[in-house]
């Protein structure tokens, strides 16, 4: 559906994007992860035609997307990072104004407004001024405006910044519903748990380059980190220290031992069985697996970027 070929963009001496290549299929929920200043928003802005790339091209549904291509914007919805609404107007007025700019007829617009208000659960608050909305409500309306023209592709630029867990969860459910309906979604975020929950495919971008691309398990496998077992330090475990060391590499911390099993123990159930034999039950064991955050930090480093 969307093919990004060798996109390069510089701002003065800063190379924001450096030969980005991506292919996003129809119906995919694609996560774009990266530290601040990595180039995520720049890429989004180029996809929507807000910014012009220095090199490369973007194809949407096999058609080349030009800078300020008004035609393609009918098929793309953009959820900006900021609350991009007229706060002094009501939700309904906002929807009508933005809907008119998508050139929707009155009847179609009315239907779409009802539909998106139902989706974001603001149907009963539509006549209220947006400035009186909570942060979560504003975010939901921000999303609703981007869906007015029923786009095939939805670009979400960190759409849950600054909202409470309930609203965030509601937004996730809305996006998952849209994804289930067949919409293609590109989602940028800093929150790894969001990406893990939502995205079927992920790309990690840093210094303007894609440094990792694949499904969640493929990215985690990149880290090549084995499953480890955290065993609580207590008299029972201390007395079994010798036997624990026989199971693999054991690193002692202040409050627990971290056991990485040897190659011969390919199944976790074998380890559990051995530990149970030592009198160490499940209550003292915590399994530690590699997470997307581990992958992210491993690939992008731990230094602060801002």
């Amino acid at each position: 559906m969307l093919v990004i070929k060798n996109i390069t963009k510089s701002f003065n001496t800063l190379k924001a994007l450096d030969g980005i290549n991506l292919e996003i299929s129809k119906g995919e929920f694609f996560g774009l992860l990266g530290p601040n200043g990595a180039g995520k928003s720049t890429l989004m802005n180029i996809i929507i035609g807000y910014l012009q790339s220095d090199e490369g091209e973007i194809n949407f549904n096999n058609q080349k997307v030009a800078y300020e291509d008004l035609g393609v914007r009918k098929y793309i919805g953009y959820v900006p990072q900021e609350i991009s609404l007229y706060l002094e107007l009501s939700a309904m007025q906002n929807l009508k104004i933005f809907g008119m700019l998508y050139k929707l007829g009155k009847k179609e617009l009315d239907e779409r407004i009802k539909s998106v208000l139902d989706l974001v659960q603001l149907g009963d608050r539509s006549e209220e001024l947006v400035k009186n909305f909570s942060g979560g409500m504003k975010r939901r309306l921000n999303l609703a405006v981007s869906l007015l023209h029923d786009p095939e592709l939805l670009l979400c630029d960190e759409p849950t910044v600054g909202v409470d867990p309930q609203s965030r969860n509601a937004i996730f459910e809305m996006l998952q519903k849209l994804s289930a309906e067949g919409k293609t979604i590109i989602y940028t975020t800093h929150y790894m748990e969001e990406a893990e929950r939502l995205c079927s495919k992920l790309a990690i971008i840093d210094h303007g380059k894609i440094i990792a691309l694949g499904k969640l398990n493929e990215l985690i496998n990149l880290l090549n980190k084995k499953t480890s077992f955290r065993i609580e330090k207590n008299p029972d475990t201390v007395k079994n220290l010798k036997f624990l060391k026989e199971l693999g590499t054991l690193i002692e911390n202040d409050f627990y031992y971290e056991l990485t099993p040897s190659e011969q123990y390919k199944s976790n159930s074998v380890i559990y069985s051995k530990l149970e034999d030592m009198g160490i039950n499940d209550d003292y064991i915590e399994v530690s697996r590699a997470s997307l955050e581990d992958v992210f930090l491993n690939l992008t480093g731990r230094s602060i970027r801002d």
Partner: protein
Amino acid sequence: MNTIIKLVYKDFIRFTKDRPAFLLTFVVPVVLIIIFANIFGDGKPAGKVPVILVNESKSIVAKYLESKIDSSKSLRPVKEWKDNSTGTVKKIDEEKAKELVKEGNYSAAIVMPNDFFTDTSSSLKFKYYYDPKSDVETAIIQGEFQKTIMTQMPRLMPLLFQKQIESSMGNLKASGFKKDISRTIGSYFNVSIDSVMDRFTKVDSASLFKQSKDTSKSENFMGKVIKFENKQLVGAEVTNPGLTRTVGGWAIMFLLFSITGAASSLFEEKSEGSLKRILCMPVNRSQILWSKYIYSLLLGVIQLSVLFFISWAIYKVDIFSNFFNLVIMIVCSSAAAVAFGMFITSIATTNAQASGYSTLLILVMSALGGSWFPITLFPEWMQHISKFTLTYWSVEGFVQVLWRQAPFSGIIPEVAVLVCIAILVNLYSLKRFKQGKVFK
């Protein structure tokens, strides 16, 4: 205390980073003080007020008074006009003087006619044609003219006194009359003849300029020796002269404020993100600029229409006698004001900066352009600068339409300049917008 000092320090640091606040705190008042100082530096206008002076009399008295008006510190006598059709400079006669005043080129004309003072005259006869479009200017001309005449009266009085007696008693036959009468008055009153004449000059001079259809009925002596034929050539029928003359100036100032605010709302939309959202819709940048232009233009037209309508409804300013030309002026002024607003938006990078620049420029343009006081009070160099402001052309246009009831041909220069300002400034702004300042 230490904490308070640190907080004060913090506020000063923030202030120094706030350019608009700096402009409004220091630059705007300083610029306005400079303008006011140049106009009213020593308590009276620094510039010489132009006044047409026509001397058609051959008498030595007329020549003498003309020389005194020529050397006035407040009046600039104008005696010639340039005929653009032939390119020649011609002497202004009485009819031309009236025409020039009616057209608004000058506020007043003083005419010393053929019969100003003849061998058979017993009084000085002036004609005074005026257009009181500016109360201040009119007062200056009248005051200065009165002063010039009255300070010269002691010298002229014996002659006029003699002529008055001759007119009522018959021709003076005996020589040495003046000497004998001086001696007689001096011996009876124990004063010199000059001091007697001085007393005549202390007659209320303001009464000289009181408009009177029949000045011959004046009972006082001064009325008999100085005859004025006053005629208001413009605005005599106007219901509310004060407001009619000034409403345009104030309207254009507030128009500039509102239009600049409307045009620079792009910054507001940019900062709240709605501009970017629109730019990500099937809308291009030129459509956004056009929408801002049309919105601002309509807002300006509506604002001016409301202001003039209220002036009519409450204060009876006549807006309907010359309605078509008023509409033209409203549209042209609004178009020029919108161009100014777009220009400010194109050179500023933030809403605060746009607000600072616009406040500075609007106040300066209003002061220089005649919104607050007539530009004829300015020094000559400032009067030239005035013509570079759109305020000047708008104010002049509204005065022509409302005060002078000028036909369309009378507002062609104002309309042409305002349209040119609108086109040229918009083209420049468009160039700046293409560089992407606002849309970045």
